[in-house]
């Protein structure tokens, strides 16, 4: 347990010190949301209707930007070799690193989202459910990104390949994430069914993604 905590603390500290990845993700998210109304024109009703979708799509793309770094740096400087000889199973190492990605990228993006929502004329009443849905859904975003990051480890310019691999897996998160924010689309006037599915997606990926990522890491380390 203390070894897992040491790894988590190191990864968070590294992300904080290096700063770049989180900053780029936040900046990218801001830009995507800002240019969308410019492309669509000043129809406030239209913007309000599509705001949850734009906020979710932007968040997924922004999170992907820094996903490559989950394992890349440790792979390049040899730390991953040493991590693999540690007392933690590689599965747990992978899980902890995905968790660090969620803490350092997922949460900052979620905290930025309501402010960006204001730019899209999102109804203020939906902001709590937006933040709640994103907090529940972003763990799945980070852990699934971990699978892609481990599969593309060691490839040059792996960013695009990573996106191709991972974005299809994001479809359920996107669907249930958006329908949590806009309950009138789904029928019953309650956010709970899609929200609970979102939670289950996150829980399932927290359990399953580290297994897949560790298997890919083991192959990459050979």
């Amino acid at each position, binding site marked *: 347990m*203390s*070894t897992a905590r*040491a*790894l988590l603390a*190191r990864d968070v*500290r*590294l992300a904080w*010190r*290096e700063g770049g990845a989180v900053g780029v993700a936040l900046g990218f998210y801001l830009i995507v949301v800002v240019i969308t109304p410019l492309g669509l024109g000043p129809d406030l009703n239209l913007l309000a209707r599509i705001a949850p979708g734009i906020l979710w799509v932007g968040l997924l793309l922004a999170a992907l930007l820094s996903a490559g770094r989950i394992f890349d740096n440790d792979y*390049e*400087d*040899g*730390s991953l*070799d*040493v*991590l*693999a*000889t*540690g*007392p*933690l199973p590689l599965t747990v190492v992978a899980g902890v690193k995905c968790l660090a990605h969620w803490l350092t990228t997922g949460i900052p993006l979620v905290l930025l989202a309501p402010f960006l929502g204001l730019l899209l004329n999102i109804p203020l009443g939906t902001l709590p459910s937006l933040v709640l849905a994103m907090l529940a859904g972003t763990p799945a975003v980070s852990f699934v990104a971990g699978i892609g990051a481990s599969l593309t480890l060691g490839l040059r310019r792996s960013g695009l390949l990573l996106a191709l691999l991972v974005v299809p897996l994001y479809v359920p998160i996107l669907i249930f994430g958006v329908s949590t924010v806009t309950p009138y689309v789904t029928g019953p006037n309650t956010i709970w069914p899609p929200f609970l599915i979102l939670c289950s997606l996150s829980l399932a990926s927290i359990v399953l993604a580290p297994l897949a990522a560790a298997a890919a890491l083991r192959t990459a*380390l*050979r």
Partner: protein
Amino acid sequence: MQSPFNVSLAAHDIGCERGGRTLFQGLSFALAPGEALLVSGPNGAGKTSLLRQLEGLLPLAAGRLSVTGAEEDTPVAELCHAVGHLNATKTSLTVRENLAFWADFLGNGDGDLADALAAFGLEPLADFPAGLLSAGQKRKLALSRLYAAPRPIWLLDEPSVSLDAHAVTRLDRAIRDHLKAGGIAIVSTHVPLKTEFDHELSLGLERAA
């Protein structure tokens, strides 16, 4: 300085295959506590691959490894310290933070950081970001990891690369101290070390074109 170790390691007929090519096969050795093995051979003979097999990163194509003296069920990898071609240092952490992390991660923090910093004379640089270190200093930092968490088996792959003469002497002394404490060292090197190796393994290019 370190708790005396009492682990012996033996390899029985191990083989290694990379990309369909057999690098070596039928390799056996047995190391008792306090013994050292020198791995030599031309480039591409499989020295690094052998060390990575012991580290548990590469699968054995044949044969098996056995360890006695350790708790049962402990994988060989968890008894090993491996210092390879890459230094595994984080450029934005200080020297001390780098070592402290490995001490926590590899050994639950029961290694002695002061010892680790002193081993290769890194105390004056302790609060310096590792990114500003020279290649030789980074190497010393990687080697200091050996002291951050006590482990009985040292796997050193060309440990003397980019070290100055003085540091190579320190490295030599570190290996000898480790052996005296009952540890095992498996070293692949082209630079002659003063350490007396009890065994030598010479890998050849069996399929040399």
